[in-house]
């Protein structure tokens, strides 16, 4: 079954108020084109789930700055002063998790489970008494699964069936989000016919993917960020 869609069709499936996972750690894996279309269509009241807030003026920061995001679930926004300011001004509700815990909460939803028991941050200020579980003689923190209505992902290569291959450090949260979201939308600059990949090389099986958008080219958003180059 061909899952190809235009970018307009694919993003139009997202209603205001939706809970949307967005792949990427910094730039790599950020689906800038899908984000731009979401900016253009203007859905509001979104809850975004992403490792970081990109940098000011880039990626999901555009959606935040445009007032489309009411809540961000993330791990670290230190590189985005605009997002920090909006948080401090009370205009953006942010929920922080340790990075691997965020990954694991998403993956837990993706595995069809409901939560997991951990000792990370057990006796730190991130743990509330009501998160604690005494079980078989030990105390654990219960971390609940984190699912979403949609996931927006970037794949280096994809096929019509939704099989995905990521590249470099752009894997990060994407395979987990593909599993955890009810409706998964992928952009790729390289859309192939089924059979293009060796079956062992596929990172995300097409079963998890609903919609594949072919990008004619990658904009400058996807390029090197000059101030991260060490001289």
């Amino acid at each position, binding site marked *: 079954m061909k899952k190809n869609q235009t970018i307009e069709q694919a993003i139009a499936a997202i209603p205001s108020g939706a809970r949307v996972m967005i792949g990427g750690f910094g730039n790599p894996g950020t689906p800038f084109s899908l984000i731009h279309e979401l900016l253009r269509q203007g859905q509001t009241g979104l809850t975004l789930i992403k490792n970081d807030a990109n940098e000011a003026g880039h990626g999901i920061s555009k959606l935040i700055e445009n007032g489309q995001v009411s809540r961000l679930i993330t791990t670290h*926004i230190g590189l985005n002063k605009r997002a920090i300011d909006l948080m401090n001004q009370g205009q953006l509700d942010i929920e922080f998790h340790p990075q691997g815990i965020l990954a694991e909460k998403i993956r837990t939803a993706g595995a069809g489970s409901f939560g997991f028991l951990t000792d990370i941050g057990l006796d730190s200020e991130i743990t509330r008494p009501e998160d604690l579980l005494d079980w078989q003689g030990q105390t654990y923190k219960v971390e609940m699964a984190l699912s979403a209505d949609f996931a927006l992902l970037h794949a280096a290569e994809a096929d019509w069936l939704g099989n995905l291959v990521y590249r470099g450090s752009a894997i990060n949260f994407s395979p987990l989000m593909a599993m955890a979201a009810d409706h998964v939308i992928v952009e790729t600059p390289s859309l192939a016919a089924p059979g293009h990949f060796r079956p062992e090389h596929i990172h995300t099986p097409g079963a998890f993917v609903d919609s594949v958008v072919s990008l004619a080219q990658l904009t400058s958003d*996807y390029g090197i960020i000059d101030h991260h180059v060490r001289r």
Partner: protein
Amino acid sequence: MSVAERILSRAVNEITPGSIVNLGIGLPSRIMHYLPDDFDVQIHSENGILGAWKQAAPEAMDPFLIDAAGAYVSLGQGASLFDSAVSFAIIRRARLDLTMIGAFEVDSAGNLANWKIPGKFSPGIGGAMELAQKTRRIVVLTNHTDKYGKPKILHTCRLPLTAKACVSRIITDLAVIDVTGDGLVVREKLVDISDAELQEKTEAELNFATGEGPHDTA
């Protein structure tokens, strides 16, 4: 030699051949450049890399390949790439031999605070908590005092902790200090400073090792 260079020059010796090491954002991430090009180490980056290496040559830089600090790294021979869940599984399963990390405060029990200054700085904890709590050996790199000259090595941390009793060694611009069952023990001095002067710049009580040179009991 700048203060940072003094810390980094000493810190690089912590990396033993064949080990798997995570280098925190900021000062620690710069240690990589002090290693010989052929050094046998695998640098883990929590965004999904085992085998990250020095910044790629300009023509080889890949916008889809950064480390957790945002640098356009190259990959060493035998590098692997994986998702964030696997990356933190490596951390939580204690498959890292060493993490070098920065600190706002560190104390005589090896407690570490490096992620939050309530009311001033709270950009999220990132991967620090899991690294600090689960790496077999944590070495803190920090200036001995803050920019106001106040001690950063405290009797007891006052800021929210990243992890408890996690630090094995503290390398500052002045000294190498181990966290031991008997409190903090100064192993080396990196500048010409008396015991009394070093103690004055340190809130926590320091013990001075009787032997000379590097010696690790942590």
